[in-house]
């Protein structure tokens, strides 16, 4: 039952990078709309409005990935505790706990890579005007 959702499943493991993909697509589309259709080009607080939208999308992506990462770390801690408690290598309970620790670790690492990748995508938003 514990493995129904979240960092212990394959889908949970892929979620942080799916967030990266959604963010990547979102900023590319918004930037395309701004340059192709003139969407949100008015200046607000020293930058074009579209830049603020891009930054907001980036912050949302950071938040979602961080949340997944923290969740994964908690799951990993719990699984590590269960591994220690289960002890014996051949018992099914121990095997399941080890598997959960593995997938939770993997999810946390995927979240780290996704965080770095969103950072890579986000930095140009701070450095460049949207339609130069």
């Amino acid at each position, binding site marked *: 039952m514990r493995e129904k959702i979240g960092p212990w499943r394959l889908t949970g493991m892929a979620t942080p990078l799916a967030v990266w993909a959604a963010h990547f697509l979102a900023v590319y589309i918004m930037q395309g709309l701004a340059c192709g259709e003139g969407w949100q080009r008015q200046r607000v607080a020293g930058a074009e409005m579209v830049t603020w939208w891009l930054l907001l999308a980036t912050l949302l992506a950071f938040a979602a990935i961080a949340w997944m990462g923290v969740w994964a770390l908690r799951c990993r801690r719990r699984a590590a505790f269960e591994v220690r408690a289960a002890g014996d290598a051949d018992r099914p309970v121990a095997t399941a706990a080890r598997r959960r620790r593995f997938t939770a670790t*993997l999810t946390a690492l995927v979240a780290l890579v996704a965080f770095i990748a969103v950072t890579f995508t986000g*930095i140009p938003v701070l450095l*460049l005007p949207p339609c130069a």
Partner: protein
Amino acid sequence: MSTTTQSPEPIDPLENSARLEELHRIWSNEPGLAGQLKAVNHSTVGMRFILTGFAFLLAGGVLGMFIRLQLAWFDAEVLDPARFNQFVTMHGTTMMFLFAVPILEGFAMYLLPKMIGSRDLPFPRLSAFGYWCYLFGGLFLYSSFLFDAAPDGGWFMYVPLTDSTYSPGLGADFWLIGVTFAEIAAVLAAVELIVLVLINRAPGMDLRRMPLFAWAMLVTAFMIAFGFPPLILASVLLEIQRAFDFAFFEVARGGDPLLWQHLFWLFGHPEVYIIFLPAAGMVSMVIATFARRPIVGYTWIVLAMVSVGFLSFGLWVHHMYTVGIPLLALAFFSAASMAVAIPMGIQVFAWIATLWSGRPWMRLPLLYLLGFFLIFVIGGLTGVMLAMVPLDWQVHDSHFVVAHLHYVLIGGMMFPLFAGLYYWLPMATGRMPSESLGRTAFWMVFIGFNLTFLPMHLTGLLGMPRRVYTYPEELSVQWLNLLSTAAGFVLAVGMVAIAVDVFISLRSGRRAARNPWKAGTLEWAVPFPVPQFNFASIPEVRDRYPLWDRPETDEAANRADGLLGNPVDGRRELLGTGILSAEPEQVIRVSTSTWLPLLAALALSVLLACFIAKWYLAAALMVLPLLALFAAWAWTTGHRQAPVELEAEPGLLLPTQYACRNAPGWWALVVSLLIDGALFASLVFAYFYLWLGTEPWPPDGIATGALGMPLVALGLLAGSAVAAQWAWRALRSTDGDGEPARGRGGFAWLVAALLGAGFIVAHWLALAGPVGAPQAHAYASVVWVLAGFHMVHVAVAAMAALFVMARTRCGFVTAARPLEARVTAALWRYAVAQGLVTWAVIHLFPRMG
């Protein structure tokens, strides 16, 4: 559910022999040529992919040598410009579509079931069909030479060069149809391999014990599922434009040639990693054996593969830096291109650490891996250079790019492939390759490769363009080119030496001991000669390296006293296990040898040949036999008396797939719908991309029309969804006593099908008036294709509904064996959801402006 693989007492040898004999009888291909043509077993099909892939490698290599001869000197006249264009196009196309992807899939089809403890692939007929599509697609492409109509638009077939105005012959048609035909194999293999890895692993092989090659193929198969559809769509759109004068890519009628580039590279860049990841999986398998220790950083390598699988989809525009895209957008892709270097680096460091901490055994496979490290790292570094926009602007379309891509592809794919070839050859043939001839071949390939492609970095930086049959003498690059050409022949001779080595090994090589490299993974537990069923009993796994953990596993694999060891039913059976836990969950019955895959592929070939010949009516008529064959295929899946449960071993009753939630058919549907969803998303992307460049939308002369008829169509679609759901619930509400629930839900399926047909008619009428002919404008073209795409889905769902109705009446589908109805109900839900999006895009979006 727990299990053991061995009986408490050893099996009687006579009984064991009788069971093995029966297993051989059940799993063997039928004798003679007919038996070979009907074969569907994974070892046979996988080996065919591998051999055909090598044949296309030779063909593509010969074309490459002609290209090098032409470029050896600035005024060489080996090929005239037109022939040069054809050879360049076919060289790239062959290597990417007919060699690299199919051969890796062949290795996966051959090896993966053995590696994860399965007897076969979950859909043997599908993989056989995929092979014939691949073969016929490749032959289609090469047959263009016979008609002097070889494609010449480059392996990326940019428009407008390849539209009917600038490429009026049949060359582009051969390419578009041949490649799409061959791609069917890749997409089917993706479905097959995902389901295999998810639910056919040996008991105990949970996620953390999966061989890294299985992880690599799982990620690769998902990448194919999302990466290939954009190219399939682009090819279909361009062929429709060429054949029926639609306007997707024609500027004068509102189209956009850059749409082709986006769709092509949405496929094209992930394709590089689709080629690289399986090879990386091979590296991880081979390196552990020759370092004589478990791989270092297993979790990190899995992380790297998953990360590459995602990040590689954010790189496509780095092939389009020079087309005039705003700097910020270029920066997004430049950033992703650099980010992907992180997981690639993780993998390389994990491999180095494995060698560093192990006791390396310098044999041929390891030699190829060392060559791989050097070449691939150089290719990766020039890749990071090319990810920088300013540098790419300078060297775009120059031979620097040619050098880079060959370093990446030959270094990253072919060297691991040869390592894998030498590594697994003794398992497949039972004979060892010659170490001395193999080493000579390696050095020829290694030196020949580097001397061929290293100079191209320089010729590219000096300004030598790619894809052009000559270059100006003033560039002073002729000597470097001559060196490349001469070294290219050394490389070619090295390749021939590898082929000779393999041939000699087959004929008179030293007989291999069982598990000659002392490897730890399960494929080496398979006895030699490799039986078609791989394992007499499905082995249980307790470690990532089962043969290092329990060396007796190879003995157990030859004893028919464990899981599925007693073939009482005389049918081909696989064990299905849990996705995460790999605990036994089901017994999967798979099909035996049949003509259906070959006949279906032949019918498809005739259909496509008629299309190329512009006999459109004949092509349309060929749909009928094709549908009949697919109907026969579906009808022969399963049987009336299929049990709900089977005894997998004494005391262990498991449901058959017809009654199991994790049935392979279910997961095949899920993966197929993912692929279809990617295709649909690409089409919606095309709609909005065309919208972005067109003002007003719809253009002048095309109306949005009244909403009345579209609403009627929507109502019919919603009604069909309700009826399909009603049919599914009716079946589920019957008692599960195992008796056929005749007629339950049958009428509702009929209603769903009729309402679906009504929707198709109503939506057609809704569009015919206001939108008019699809040739008028890109808007009309894309709207009709979007609507037609969805109509095809409704038609398929309606046919599936009628099929399930008939199957329910005939007792194949019951409340206890609901798989087919479950799959059809889900298909219907998907078709309706797709319809809602299509309806909103076509009828609501234009009214929002």
